[in-house]
């Protein structure tokens, strides 16, 4: 068993980065994720592993530092919260276009605009549907515990390098700020220069005599080549859809109703499910762990079994659109969620199921 520690989600994320042998972190403070860079600075990773930690002048600069280091084959990461993530979206789109691996953490807070510093899940569209310009997808992982804030750093980098694609960890202010027991994985050494050359032969590590120059760019002014590049990206996204869907199911075998929720909402929905079961309502829960790729097939199958689905998220209803696409009219789908930094309670979720799905099921 690995080392056990009581940590904040943001701290666990920082510790995991050091232990994973991440080469660099570039960030900018914003609530509720400033603990990431504070933790990293306090831990002196430059002494522990040689990891670079730098506070940039802006989120824009930070993501472009990530672009540079990632383009040179380094394991590099950044983190921010909603307004800062919006600023990073330019660089994220460039990284998706140039196919650069990175892990990017969003500890979501309420918006729009400066919004609030309280937790929210209103950045789903931005994370899953694009956010920046152009036809691209991030691989999006949604942690629901401090343990996953640590584990997903490892998983995220594996996916990022496997597919040469940026990975977003879509967390929220609850998961980032709360303290839980976390089992930390053992230290993994940073890649050597030789390992970087082997693992990222495309990286700009300095031209050698045995290869042509490497170029990191998202630009191709020739539209036919640019279309080919886009087709290649889409084929990659289809591979990801085929192979990387992750989810968790609770009490789905005999379920007559289903909650679908990710991140902290999944924990609340899990409690609501127990309350419902106590009342004799047979409710199951599906928690998407990857939001892109989305567990469409599984949801579609469950839709044939249940009388209705309540999509629970701290937003005006974003993921519910993907749920509806997956369900494809097979059963009733409704959304429930609080906004603006308010966290819904299990009782509210249960009431929403009774009202919107069970009570309102006459129009089936």
């Amino acid at each position, binding site marked *: 068993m690995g080392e056990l520690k009581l940590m904040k989600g943001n701290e666990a994320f920082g510790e995991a980065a050091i232990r994973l042998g991440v080469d660099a972190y570039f960030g900018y403070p914003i609530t509720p994720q400033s603990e990431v860079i504070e933790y990293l600075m306090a831990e002196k990773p430059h002494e522990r592993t040689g990891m670079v930690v*730098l506070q*940039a002048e802006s989120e824009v600069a930070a993501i*472009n*530092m*990530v672009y*540079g280091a990632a383009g*040179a084959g380094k394991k590099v990461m950044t983190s921010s919260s909603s307004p800062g993530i919006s600023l990073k979206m330019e660089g994220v789109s460039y990284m998706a276009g140039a196919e650069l691996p990175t892990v990017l953490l969003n500890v979501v807070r309420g918006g729009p605009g400066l919004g609030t510093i309280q937790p929210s899940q209103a950045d789903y569209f931005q994370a899953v549907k694009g956010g920046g310009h152009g036809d691209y997808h991030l691989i999006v992982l949604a942690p629901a515990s401090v343990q996953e804030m640590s584990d997903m750093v490892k998983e995220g980098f594996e996916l990022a390098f496997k597919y040469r694609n940026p990975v977003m960890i879509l967390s929220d202010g609850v998961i980032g700020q709360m303290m839980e027991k976390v089992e930390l994985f053992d230290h993994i050494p940073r890649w050597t220069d030789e390992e970087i050359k082997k693992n990222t032969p495309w990286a700009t590590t300095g031209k050698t005599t045995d290869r042509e*120059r490497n170029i990191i760019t998202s630009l191709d002014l020739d539209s036919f080549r640019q279309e080919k590049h886009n087709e290649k990206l889409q084929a990659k996204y289809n591979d990801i859809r085929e192979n990387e869907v992750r989810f968790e199911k609770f009490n789905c075998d005999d379920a007559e109703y289903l909650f679908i929720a990710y991140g902290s909402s999944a924990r609340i929905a899990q409690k609501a499910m127990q309350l419902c079961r106590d009342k004799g309502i047979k409710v199951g829960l599906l928690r998407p762990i990857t939001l892109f790729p989305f567990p469409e097939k599984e949801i579609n199958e469950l839709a044939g079994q249940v009388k209705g689905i309540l999509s629970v998220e701290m937003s005006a209803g974003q993921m519910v659109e993907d749920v509806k696409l997956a369900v494809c009219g097979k059963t009733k789908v409704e959304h429930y969620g609080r906004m603006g930094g308010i966290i819904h309670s299990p009782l509210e979720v249960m009431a929403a199921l009774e009202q919107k799905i069970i009570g309102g099921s006459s129009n089936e």
Partner: protein
Amino acid sequence: MSKDLLNEIIQPENLVYKKTKLMTNNTLSYCPGCGHGTAHRLIMDVVEELDIWKDTIGVAPVGCSVLAYDFMNIDMQQAAHGRAPAVATGIKRCYPDKVVFTYQGDGDLAAIGTAETIHAINRGENIIIVFINNGIYGMTGGQMAPTTLPGMKSSTSPYGRDTEMMGNPLKMTELISALPGAYMVTRQAVHTPAHVRKAKRALKMAFKNQIEKKGGVSFVEIVSNCNSGWKMTPVHSNQWMVENMFPFYPLGDIKIDGEFVNK
């Protein structure tokens, strides 16, 4: 001159100048007479002469020189508009022993990338910034740049830059020279053989500064022409540059070895 005599002269052992192999054979995307080509070649000349091409990583901007990686035969990255100093920071911090330079135009460096430029320099990143200043947005078709001279016409200042309405041109090089992280700051040109030789010496000093890890940014501005944007012939644009750009952007060293140069 007879053909025989010419043939006698044009022999490999008599070669005194040939474009460096670190420039690819791709036709430069620049307009006839544009100083970008000369500036590219000088950088590659220096990289070849210092024999650092295996360890040099360049960062291209957005602007006319967005395709610099098509012409410079070394590993390169293309950065988002204005972000080249941040991209270079990311590379250099992870590879302190590599040589990293950015190549940026005035729109890229002095407008949208002002923050990235100032902060990279203020942090004293050990990188080179080559700044091509032609007073205009060349690639997008000749719009007003932060460096467009007062009264100068562009497609977005068609009656001349009215400083009351459009603000003043930004002397970025003087501005950043005040920062402690600016180790070398100089302003050069590449329109005559003498200027080309001086500019090359400045670039060589910049690269040596980085190799020797002398703290801070080496910043080389090259005042250049944009004959298409200025709507002149190449030769006329060079004359116009001497008469109009140089009085506002005077050539010469501003800071060497971290110290201001007394003039």
